[in-house]
């Protein structure tokens, strides 16, 4: 062991002194570290009290849950495999078309909502708030509304996903546009290009890969949400699933769930392959 290292090890106090600031938080930080967990726990206790959680139900509930799970095996199609397959196809169609429509609508809007391409701060503010409002309403509620507009069936689901995703994608796209490098656009402008050309050649190449990744990510998540909107009659496998749970046909529930799991796994696999092909190994948020 070198002399230098020995000295350091012997002199633990010197080392401690050098890094004293790592150990001594301000009183405020210390108080926060103490109070924050207490506050979280306190609020949880208040929540349990306020909601009047019936603890006595947990035992029997778990027992009946175990019974349900026992009923799930072996999974069975209940004799209507083609119905389930069709419903799964519907689910995929809802997710695909919903995402597609949302993309087509959200893309132009996002330019109006991005700081660096918006024509006016007022326009930007109004569009941002509009997108927030759309996003604040769950897809299932949109589905309920659209069932009233176009009737029962997958079309209502497509429109519901399209609307609720327009809000989310519009926000994400505009953030992607805002985070672009200005220099590419400026150089197009400096070469005498119009604003439109600057966007086409200076901005689009930067955002397209990011946007493509986000679209794929949303498609994945929409496959998941399209499996439930059937509960309100907006098409897809959710209708069968909710009916089977209500009628306690748990073997069929298990089958439908397995179908969903496999489908989602395949879609995830395909889309992650595509995503890596487009943007490389980068996280998409």
């Amino acid at each position, binding site marked *: 062991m070198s002399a230098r290292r020995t000295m350091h090890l012997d002199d633990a106090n010197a080392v401690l002194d050098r890094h004293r600031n790592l150990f001594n938080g301000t009183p405020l930080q210390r108080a926060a570290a103490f109070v924050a967990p207490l506050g979280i726990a306190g609020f949880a206790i208040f929540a349990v009290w306020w909601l009047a959680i019936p603890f006595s139900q947990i035992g029997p509930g778990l027992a009946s849950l175990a019974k349900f799970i026992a009923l799930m095996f072996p999974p069975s199609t209940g004799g209507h495999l083609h119905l389930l397959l069709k419903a799964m196809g*519907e689910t995929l169609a809802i997710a695909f078309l919903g995402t597609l429509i949302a993309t087509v609508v959200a893309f132009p809007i996002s330019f109006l909502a991005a700081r660096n391409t918006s024509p006016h701060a007022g326009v930007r503010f109004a569009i941002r708030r509009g997108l927030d409002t759309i996003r604040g309403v*769950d897809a299932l*509620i949109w589905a309920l509304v659209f069932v009233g507009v*176009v009737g029962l069936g997958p079309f209502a689901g*497509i429109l519901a996903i399209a609307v609720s995703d327009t809000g989310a994608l519009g926000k994400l796209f505009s953030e992607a546009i805002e985070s672009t490098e200005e220099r590419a656009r400026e150089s197009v402008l400096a070469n005498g290009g119009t604003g439109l050309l600057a966007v086409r050649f200076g901005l689009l190449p930067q955002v397209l890969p990011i946007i493509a990744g986000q679209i794929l990510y949303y498609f994945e998540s929409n496959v998941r949400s399209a499996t439930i909107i059937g509960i309100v009659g907006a098409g897809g496998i959710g209708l069968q699933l909710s009916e089977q749970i209500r009628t306690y046909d748990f073997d069929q529930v298990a089958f439908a*769930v397995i179908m969903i799991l496999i489908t989602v796994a395949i879609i995830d696999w395909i889309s992650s392959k595509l995503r890596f092909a487009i943007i490389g190994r980068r996280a998409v948020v």
Partner: protein
Amino acid sequence: MTSSILSVPQARLEVLLADYRREVGRRRRQSLLVLAILAILMVIAGRFGEVDLNNLVDNISNFTSYFGRILPKLSIANFGADVADWYWNVAGWLKLLLDTILIAYLGTLIGAGAAFMMAFFAAADLAPSKALRWSIKRIFEFCRTVPDLVFALMFVSAFGLGPLAGILAIAIHTFGTLGKLFTEAVENIDMKPVEGVRSTGSRFVEMVRFGALPQVMSSFASYTLLRFEINVRSGSVVGMVGAGGIGQDLFVAIRKFYYSDVSAILLMIIVCVAVIDLVTERIRHRLSGQDKHG
């Protein structure tokens, strides 16, 4: 070509131009291919999705008029009374909204707590056992792929109507999503502190506590806050199947065409989500700021 600043010989230029055209042509063909695939998928999906544009065009007036109908009738002359009329059940709805927030809170807390304990066993860089890691990852996947409403429906059957079913459904879904995010956060840490702790002969728990946890704590908190906001939104939906919260009233209002109630409840949910969004975003910015310093 005296005015040209290019000093590339003509022959070389032609080669370069040909290269350029070939490259552009290749990309054009690629884009066309993608568009063609998209078009085919669209037609197939349109078939499956029973897309009926005529239906949409015929009924789109329903959609716009729907928003006309759910708008409250407010007049300036009688504003106070009109608002009071619109929010005739404000006390009851506020209580239900608080229920929803608390359901989301408890669900997030339980789900995040469970995910926190499992994430270190599922991360590739820390996991003590490969088999354990694989099975935890599959459990996460299962919990986030099965829709929370399906869990809610089952729990309503098992535990009875009420918030307990909603809390558990949200907790399970949160467990699945946060488990995945937490695991990824742990997989992205700098391994040097972990190795430092390991070299002192520590056990797994100490390795996690002193090597990994300080690196991931702020991103864990940030993900959890983001999930909380999402859960408030889905908490407003699980009520539709009887799992507590404001969703039940909203569902009834939409189904029974109590138009002004729909807008009143929706407005409350939107404002609530927006406020939570703002607050959590503040905290998250703080947390990520801390991350950069330390």
